């Protein structure tokens, strides 16, 4: 069964350092989502791509976060510089021909900022 791949699974970084996460959606899925999950909170949508275009980045802290999906396939989320409050799980999801409501999630990247 096709899956959403994410790497790394765990990342520890010091504050003020740069960090990047990678996501490879299910093949053929045009829509890609990056979510942030802080312990005890729900999921917060950071950015949504349709193919290579950003369709929603209203909750992305653009002073330090950036996201790209250059060829409309895999995607990278970057934080520079990282802050203590960025410690969270970063989840990638994708949806395809089945519809926006069929979101498939990757295993996530657990970020710890020290």
């Amino acid at each position, binding site marked *: 069964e096709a899956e959403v791949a994410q790497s790394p699974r765990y990342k520890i970084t010091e504050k003020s350092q740069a960090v990047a996460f990678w996501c490879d959606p299910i093949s053929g899925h045009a829509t890609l989502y990056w979510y942030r999950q802080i312990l005890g909170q*729900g*999921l917060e949508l950071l950015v949504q791509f349709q193919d290579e275009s950003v369709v*929603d980045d209203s909750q992305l802290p653009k002073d330090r976060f950036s996201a790209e999906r250059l060829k409309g396939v895999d995607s990278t989320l970057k934080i520079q510089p990282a802050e203590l409050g960025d410690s969270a799980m970063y989840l990638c*999801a994708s949806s395809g021909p089945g519809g926006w*409501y069929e*979101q498939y*999630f990757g*295993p*996530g990247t657990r970020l710890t900022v020290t």
Partner: protein
Amino acid sequence: AQSVTQPDIHITVSEGASLELRCNYSYGATPYLFWYVQSPGQGLQLLLKYFSGDTLVQGIKGFEAEFKRSQSSFNLRKPSVHWSDAAEYFCAVGSYDKIIFGKGTRLHILP
């Protein structure tokens, strides 16, 4: 604005006992409703969804949920839980290609 409330942060049940996880939503029209499960260290997996029609929805892993418009609720149920059901459960509401998640309920299972 759409919102989802899961009143219980933690729920503990004994293995073999029945389970009900509560979810209330706020939305102007008939919403798309979802339940997801997240096992430790994993991403989210869709358990079931409701769009329209029969208000009792069957999902995977023996779960079901009932949509009650009058109560704005979409509670998740299972008649007999297994130790492997210990996880975090998220209720969500969606429309216009966005899904808004509740804060989750962590389910603990007593042997």
